[in-house]
Structures are given as C-alpha cells and as structure tokens.
C-alpha cells in the first residue's frame, strides 16, 4: 500500500480503463490472412463482462495501440477472442500481431468498451465486409437468442479470405448471404438490397471504408436512427467548420478547471495537462473513448464517429480531434 504522503497529495482521480496482461491461449487461422486469438488471464481469473459490439485495445510494442472487436462468447468469462486481419498496408499493428503473438505470448490489453451497441429490435439487417464480420458474429448470436428476425449479408473478395463464413452458412444458411466478388464476377448490389426501407429494422454495418460509405449513402432514405456503423479507420480528415476558432477556452464544470486550447494542441491534451480526469484511446476520432458531454458552446466536430443527428444535437464531443466554434466550451468534466 502506498505511503501516507502519496495519499495526501492526491487531488484528482486518475480515470483509466481496465488494463491487464493476458496470454494467447489459442491461435488459429480463421481465413487467409486472418488469425483468431483466444486471450486468457495467465492466472485463470475472470475477465470483465462485455456486450455484442464491444472492442478492446491491444497495447503493442512501441506504443502501438490497435482496436479489435471481441468475437467470442460474451458468457465466457475466461476468454476474449479477437480476429485480426493482416493488412498489407499495416501501420505495424496487424503485422506485429501476425508475426509475434503465438500461443503462450503475453499481450497488454485495455477495455472492453462498446461504441457499437446492439439496440433491441424485432428485426435486423447485418452487413459485414471482410474482417468487419467480427463484431457482427456475436450480434447474430444475440439476435438469434432473443428471437429477433435477422438477415446477414457478408461480403468479401473471395471465400478463402472470409473468416467464419463456412460456419455461418452451415448453421444459419437460411438467413445468411455470403457474397464473394470473385465467384460472382461483380460487386454485391447494395443499392438494390437497401432500396426499400424494411419495417422496424435496424441496420448494423462494419467493414472497410468504401462499404461503410456506400451503406451510409444507400440508407439515407431509411428512418433516422436505423443505421449503426463502426469504423476502424478514420474517414478522410473533416474540414474545419467555417466558424472554427484557432484559440478557445474549455471550462470543466465539475472540476472547476478552465483550460486554454490553441493551435496544435487538442482539447484532450489540454485537459490531460491540467490533470482533468478523462479517458482516451485511438486519438483519431474513431473509438469514442474520450467523449465528453457539452453543456454550453458549439463544438467543431472533426471525428469519424458521431452521426449527423448527434452532431446536430451538439451535446457530445470527441475531445481528441474536435475543436470549438465558440470562444467558450463548457464540458461536464
């Protein structure tokens, strides 16, 4: 236990996410270029619970942090499973996982967190592209268990690269469409599939950016709130709003702290410098960890996560990338 002095000087709490070292219990090839890793506590302990759509961070060498969806059984308190695609354009994360994480390897993990939660609905349309199948896998199980009506469109370049496709076709062939471009000689016709908004149906989509953009476009005429998507890479950088300010003030109401944000400093960095407790992970505006509630002021949203409706509502901000259009931004921190 730390000393009394240490206890006395503490003035503000360090907020952090559950972080621990796990070991790779099992590694198997799930498809061409995809490995599935089962991570367990080295002492056999329970891991925190999670819900479909959750992801964890793998904290790799040299400060690399990568997010991977959990795709095992949420009831299994002993195992977290992730599926990792070796990205030819890897910035280092997936290559490190493929080359170094073998059975018995240790790896630092953080989380879980969930910014892609499965909202209750009588009907779902799931659309997965490639490795985007990972969060969808547990959603499919959950929807099935709850007795909801669901369909899955699973798209990929060729069947050999599509993890879990065979198991999905075998067990739920009536509900699953597996579409491999090379077998069909063309892309799947998303426009036709999404032409008629289905009654009381939520659309959940995860995959590469072109797929997400296409689904966003073809769902525009669906009822507001129908579409839920998850990104693992930032969209092309958002243009600053016309009235975006270079310098502004952030007021943290609960902590009674005021910070100045200017130039190359992000709101998040300014908050961290002032010891205001806040979580963060991706620093690219895609994971949502550093989200704060806006009590006053107009944010300049630069993230890839909030929906248009959420932006219009103006009560949330991702502090790692977004800025301000008003001179004072009051946050619930």
């Amino acid at each position: 236990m730390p000393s009394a002095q240490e206890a006395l000087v503490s003035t503000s709490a360090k907020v952090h996410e559950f972080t621990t070292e796990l070991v790779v219990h099992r590694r198997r090839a799930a498809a061409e270029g995809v490995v599935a890793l089962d991570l367990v506590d080295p002492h056999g302990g329970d891991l925190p619970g999670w819900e479909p759509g959750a992801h964890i961070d793998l904290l790799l060498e040299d400060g690399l942090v990568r997010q991977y969806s959990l795709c095992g059984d949420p009831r299994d308190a002993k195992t977290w499973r992730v599926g990792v695609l070796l990205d030819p354009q890897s910035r280092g994360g997936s290559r490190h996982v493929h080359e170094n994480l073998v059975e018995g390897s240790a790896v630092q993990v953080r989380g879980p967190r969930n910014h892609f939660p499965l909202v209750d609905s009588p009907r779902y349309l799931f659309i997965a592209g490639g490795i985007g199948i990972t969060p969808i896998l547990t959603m499919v199980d959950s929807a099935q268990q709850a007795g909801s009506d669901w369909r899955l469109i699973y798209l990929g370049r060729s069947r050999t690269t599509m993890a879990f496709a065979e198991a999905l076709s075998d067990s739920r062939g009536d509900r699953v469409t597996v579409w491999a471009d090379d077998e069909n000689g063309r892309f799947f016709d998303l426009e036709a599939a999404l032409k008629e908004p289905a009654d009381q149906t939520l659309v959940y989509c995860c995959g590469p950016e072109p797929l997400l953009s296409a689904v966003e476009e073809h769902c525009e005429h669906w009822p507001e709130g129908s579409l839920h998507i998850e990104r693992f890479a930032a969209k092309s950088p958002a243009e600053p709003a016309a009235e975006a300010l270079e310098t502004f003030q952030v007021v943290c109401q609960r902590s009674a702290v005021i910070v100045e944000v200017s130039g190359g400093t992000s709101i998040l960095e300014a908050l961290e410098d002032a010891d205001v407790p806040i979580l963060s992970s991706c620093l690219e505006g895609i994971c949502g960890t550093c989200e704060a509630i806006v009590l006053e002021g107009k944010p300049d949203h630069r993230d890839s996560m909030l929906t248009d409706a959420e932006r219009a509502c103006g009560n949330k901000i991702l502090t790692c990338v977004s800025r301000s259009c008003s001179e004072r931004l009051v946050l619930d921190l």
Partner: protein
Amino acid sequence: MTASYPTKCWYVAATSDELGEAPLGRRLLGRDVVLWRSSDGRAAAFEDRCAHRGFPLSDGHVDGERLVCGYHGCSYDADGRCVHVPTQPDVPTGMRARVFPILEEPPFIWIWPGPPAAAAGSRPPRTPWLNEPEWSTFNDAWSVEANYLMVHEHYLDFSYAPVVYRDDVPPGMERLPAFNEIEVTEKTVSYTRLLPRAPLAEWEAGATGLDPAGSYARRERGTFASPAMHIQRWELEDDGITYSNVRTHAITPESETATHVFMHASYNYAPGDDAVATMLQSFVTKLVDRDAAILERVAAHTGYDGWRSGVEFQADAAALRARHIVAVMLAKEAGRSALRPGWSKAKSLISN
C-alpha cells in the same frame, strides 16, 4: 412511466437460506413474485398469481415437486405448468403460471425480469469470497424507501463518511481524500481511495485487536458490478497483513421508489472469534440504519429526480459513470440509440 431499471439483468430475488418449505411472496422489479423450492431442491420463480382467479400463489403450499394454490387447489410444476385441477380430470389446455428465469448460486437466488430468451446470454457478477473459507461472513437484508440508483450512488460516493459517520472514521480524519483511481469497463466502474495514515477508530480496534494508537494505512474501494450489485472494501494494513472488510450489496428494485438490499459483510481475520463477529454485526447494523435513514430522508424530500438534478462533485465521478452504464442499458432496451441515451440531466451552471 418507463422503469429506471434495466430488465435484461440478473437481480437477487432472495438468499438461498430464505427459501425453505413454504413459498415466499415478494415484490420485485414492479412485479409480484412467488419463489418456492420443490422437494428435489430446485428453486423456481413465478408471477404470484394463480392462472385461475389470480389468487396469490405465495398463500399456497409446496407439495413435493408442486406448488399448490390455496384457493381451488390447482397444482403447478416447477416449469409453471398447471398439472392438476381438483374438480376436473383434465387440466385446461395451456394453463400455466408466468415463469421467471432464475439462477441459484448460493448464497444468492438470481431472477431475470426481462425477456426469458435473453437470460442465457448474460451472467450475474461473481462473488467468490462469500464461499471461501478464509472469509467469515454474516448477512442482513432490508428494504429502503428510495430508488435503487440512489442506493448505488450513495454507496459509490463515500465522501460523506466524515460527516455522517464522524465517530467511525479514523480519528482526526476531517475529510476523505479524492479518489486515487477510477477504473472502468463496458459494464462496471470501480474506484480506489488511499487514506493517509491514522490511528484506529473504535470499531477497527475492536475488530482487529491492533493497538489503536498506532498509525495505519487504509484503502477504500467501491465497485458498481452491475445494476444489481455494489461491492465496498475497507482494507487496513499493518505489518504486511491486510485486514479486509467487504460489504457485498445486492440491490434489487422493489418499485421505482423502494429497494431491497441483501447485504453480506465479510472479513478475512479473527476466524471463529464470536466477540469480533458480534461487535462487527452491531457496528454494521448501525451503519445500515443510518444509510437507510439518510436515503429515505432525501427520497421523501426531493425524490430521485431532485437527487439527480443536483450539482455534481468530483467525488461523484464513479456514480456518474454507473448512471451512464445504466442509461445505455435502458436505451438499448427501449430500442433507442445507446450512444445518445438522452438521459443526462447535466446542465450548465455557469451564468453568462
């Protein structure tokens, strides 16, 4: 009115030792429930009304593996099927009681108030210390006239201790330090607070047998394990030995304005010492009574709406996170976007 508690969650309905030969009627989560144990040891939970005239089944009796209604004598098996109607040879087709999924993991009997099909996808928090031999445990249960989130938030912010429990915090401790650490996961939040060295409070000296005039480090930890469970740890260190007191609170809404609390208090020292057990029991009873009195005073005065629309302190950080976890669960159940639960009542207090 929409309930403030998620239904897709396991809650404690009773402790295992409460369920003897007689059926037990209890209002849980806005429903009247009868809990009973068949002669094969299996526990079951039904809506507390006979499918015939709505008579409370908790007024009936258990006959072997059947629950018998005390009005016309209809018998139900553990799956809720009516299997015998005394006045006619065949049971009306499909006659049954509404059954709630339950899960018995002693000392708790957990109930799932939500859609039964979804129960299998979820598990209640684990509390292994309640069954481990190195811990001594005593328990108590009570009901408090306050919303269940007030109970959670009260326990998650212990900063009132030097005000409310002036004589029971370490002597000379005028205020509790801020949290040293808050740890979050998707579904839980925990905090840790380190206390400056201080002599022992009377109850600590009585419990541990240590020299009260010495100087001791302490650690206080609290965990929101689920909407149904809070765990608090008070750990005192001396000479490399940690004296732990753990209070496990199963928190079950009875209605929007009343809550059942099933508490287990565990400690890892003085095994088999009756004097320590008696002293700790009476100490905890005193705390429980004062906690309940404070909660009922605020609940009667402002209700949960008044409570939650107040100004938040830094000490409320863990409670606010718990509120957010619950808000997300409620939004998902309501079919709303869980990222924008629309629940936060936080408002700007800074005037322009």
